[in-house]
């Protein structure tokens, strides 16, 4: 098939180079633990931002409950690993599936709401999830839950690559276009035979499942999780990354997540001005580039295709 064209081969090769380079620098001690943690957090936030972007940037639903799904994924995977001595991969998959199911459950009633009403409803539901875990003594309650650290750079990096690949493949299929048509004009989409409720819930569930996966990675990397980590501020942080990168652009979401995570890590030594700098940056961005860094365009690697224009195909 056309899966292994020149462009995809080059992208795969550069991913392997990035992965290998980081692993090499870490092994010989150039990258210390702090930088490594930052890079793994970048991977986690990329998954979160890209999945939030599927819901908000592509399907046009302003949902602010991503931290809630992240919490479900984190706690469910931790439960499998800690309480049932399950394997890491089983925990991650279980966490993602439960978060996805929660997405369907929460999506069905709330996605009937529009705009700010949806935002408020999902914000509230995200908080409910956190409070449920806060009161669940079985999973540690307010004191939190210790989880063995089993995630390393290899896991985080390749899980991130697979997540981005799955979500962008979905967006570039006919079903993904159905989601985008809802953002563009819901009434017209419905009149063209698109079951808008089904596709909204589908986008929401896929987004939630990947938030759950990101939560699972987080839990199995951080040694320790507690409910306060997954407050609504986390949801806003993810939304800000998406808006920063550009709503409706997957490459934008990746850039937004990387810039925000690396930016806060660089400013970690100056905690008193950290939020100030980020706020000023965001205000400046909204004034000069209100559509985000990428707008709704994608960073295309077409220059990698040496063929003539017209026979390229976007299968990344």
């Amino acid at each position: 098939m056309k899966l292994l064209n020149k462009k995809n081969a080059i992208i795969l090769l550069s991913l392997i180079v990035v992965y290998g380079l980081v692993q090499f620098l870490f092994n010989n001690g150039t990258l210390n633990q702090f930088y490594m943690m930052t890079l793994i957090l970048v991977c986690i936030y990329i998954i979160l931002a890209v999945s939030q972007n599927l819901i908000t940037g592509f399907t046009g639903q302003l949902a602010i409950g991503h931290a809630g799904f992240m919490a479900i994924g984190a706690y469910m995977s931790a439960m499998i690993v800690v309480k049932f001595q399950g394997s890491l991969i089983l925990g991650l998959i279980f966490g993602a599936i439960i978060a996805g199911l929660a997405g369907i459950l929460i999506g069905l009633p709330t996605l009937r709401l529009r705009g700010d009403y949806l935002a408020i409803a999902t914000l509230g539901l995200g908080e409910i999830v956190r409070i449920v875990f806060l009161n669940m003594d079985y999973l540690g309650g307010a004191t939190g839950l210790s989880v063995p650290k089993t995630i390393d750079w290899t896991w985080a990096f390749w899980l991130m690559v697979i997540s981005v690949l799955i979500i962008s493949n979905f967006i570039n299929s006919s079903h993904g276009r159905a989601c985008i048509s809802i953002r563009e004009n819901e009434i017209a989409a419905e009149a063209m035979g698109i079951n808008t409720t089904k596709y909204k819930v589908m986008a929401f569930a896929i987004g939630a499942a990947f938030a759950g996966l990101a939560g699972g990675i987080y839990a199995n990397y951080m040694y320790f999780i507690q409910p306060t980590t997954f407050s609504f501020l986390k949801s806003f942080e993810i939304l800000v990354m998406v808006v920063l990168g550009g709503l409706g652009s997957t490459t934008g979401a990746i850039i937004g997540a990387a810039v925000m995570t690396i930016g806060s890590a660089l400013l970690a030594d100056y905690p008193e001005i950290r939020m100030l700098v980020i706020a000023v940056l965001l205000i400046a961005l909204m004034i000069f580039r209100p559509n985000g860094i990428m707008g709704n365009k994608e960073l295309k690697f077409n220059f990698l295709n040496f063929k003539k224009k017209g026979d390229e195909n976007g299968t990344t």
Partner: protein
Amino acid sequence: MALLKVESLSKSFSGLKAVSNLDMEINKGQLVGLIGPNGAGKTTVFNLLTGVYVPTEGTITFNGKKMNGLQPYKVSSNGIGRTFQNIRLFDDLTVLENVKIAYHQHVSYNTLSGILRLPNYFKGEAEMEEKSMQFLKIFDLDKNADELAKNLPYGQQRRLEIARALATKPSLLLLDEPAAGMNPQETHNLMELIRWIRDEFDLTILLIEHDMPLVMGVCEHIYVLDYGMVIAHGTPDEIKNNPRVIEAYLGEEAI
């Protein structure tokens, strides 16, 4: 048997009767016009037929199947396609993508094959692209396939709306003021085009229009609506000479 049968259809918006006791029968292959003064309830009739509104009373039977209360996407998959009076394209998508979305209900692969890029994804996408380009070609939009829909000139946007409605493969096509904002030459071309697509795609067409030369020239049967009620229906000649229609809508000197 009639393709579309509407019986004593009514719609009230808290006290205001937008449509009352509407009876309508459209046979397969007919080209029917729906005219009337502004606010007569013409677009409300379209919204009732396509499931955007739920009728207060009455029944809509299409192809022998009851359509009342079906959601718009189900009405569409049953074979009723439509365009909008105030253009509703997918503005930030390309012309080609607009048509592809309308073709979505006939897509041959499922979500999982799309995500995993299985062979039938490539086959389905290629077929979709080819079919969509055919529709664009009919409306002379194939050269604009990669342009954003919002960047098209007005007349082309109207034509894209019709192309998009056709891509859902309807058997009944509802056109809401297709000639609005077009100059006489464009209107004339549109008239030819409407007749041609009817024959080519074996369609039945119901259209709302204020452009009398177009309506009288192209429609075989006309319904006249005033205050939500049918005040007359018949052939263009009967309508032209009907005193009630002249009083309510056409005016003394018309035609």
